[in-house]
């Protein structure tokens, strides 16, 4: 991908689909879908009635659509977003307003905006949902699916781990279409977030640390810092 920057000027409206290996700056208005390999910046006065997908997405304006990035999403002060926000790293400034589901962790495939939803719903049982009570059911399911499907689904368990890890590191080779190559071989949807790495195996599902009897403590406590994989794995 070259360092091309494409600009949708302030007086321009694009209705349709924007794709490509370039960075995109939106000063005007976009309706439809944006899926680029580079960075996407929505100007403070820019408007998007579209899903936006890129490597690093920065929003300063208003969006009605889902935001997906392979590296990071930043909602700056003044941003207004109605839609889901998913990326390995998400930063939301104090003055940014969001209405939707926000999730940090595993890089969903850039073109997975559609898949992301099924993934979310599939993972809904615990992921989307809140209550700690969900944590109870969560733990067991996690244990099972995590290790099993991963290796099974993937041709080379370790291989996917790399790409995903890579994806998370933001240095993936072919970002857009696969996001985590791992997601392809494995299952559609949720696999994007599927615990690719071995760590999931040892990531104590039954957090030994958080032994507490009562509500089975979700793995979260036990997770080491940076075990984004584990966190996302939960969603799997």
């Amino acid at each position, binding site marked *: 991908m070259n360092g091309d920057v494409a*600009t949708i*000027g302030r*007086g*321009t409206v694009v209705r349709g*689909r924007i794709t*490509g290996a*370039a960075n995109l700056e939106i000063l005007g208005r976009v309706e439809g879908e944006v899926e680029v*390999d580079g960075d996407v910046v929505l100007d403070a006065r820019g408007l998007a009635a579209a899903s936006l997908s890129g490597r690093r997405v920065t929003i300063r304006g208003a969006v009605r659509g889902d935001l997906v990035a392979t590296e990071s999403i930043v909602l700056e002060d003044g941003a207004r977003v109605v839609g889901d926000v998913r990326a390995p790293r998400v930063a939301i400034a104090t003055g940014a307003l969001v209405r939707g589901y926000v999730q940090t962790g595993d890089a969903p495939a850039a073109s997975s905006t559609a898949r992301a939803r099924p993934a979310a719903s599939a993972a809904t049982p615990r992921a989307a949902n809140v209550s700690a009570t969900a944590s109870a059911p969560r733990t067991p399911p996690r244990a099972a699916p995590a290790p099993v499907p991963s290796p099974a689904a993937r041709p080379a368990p370790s291989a996917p781990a790399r790409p995903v890890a890579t994806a998370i590191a933001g240095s993936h080779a072919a970002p857009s279409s696969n996001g985590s190559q791992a997601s392809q071989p494995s299952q559609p949807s949720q696999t994007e977030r599927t615990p690719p790495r071995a760590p999931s195996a040892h990531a104590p599902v039954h957090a030994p640390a958080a032994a507490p009897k009562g509500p089975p403590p979700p793995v979260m406590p036990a997770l080491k810092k940076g075990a984004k994989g584990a966190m996302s794995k939960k969603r799997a």
Partner: protein
Amino acid sequence: MASTVIGAGITIDGEITSDEDVVVQGTVRGKLTARDGVTVEPGAVVEADVSGGPLTVAGSITGNITSTDRVDLQPGAKVIGNVKAARITISDGAQFKGNVDMDV
């Protein structure tokens, strides 16, 4: 200087409407309407009807072209479509196939 630049790596499938000028270096399929100038650079591929002010074409356009000003096909340009403009220039080396209507 254009305010809207569709860079070389970009593909837009849909409609572009602008009240400024537009420069296309990438691919546009659908429809392009600008109030000011439109420049289709070498390497750009436009499969759409294009209308705007002064049009400068060095890339490829497949579609009808309507200009409120002049249409300039530069060497290397490839246009397949009808052109409706008050003035038109087809440079040596430009390829053109279509009708020209200068009765604007």
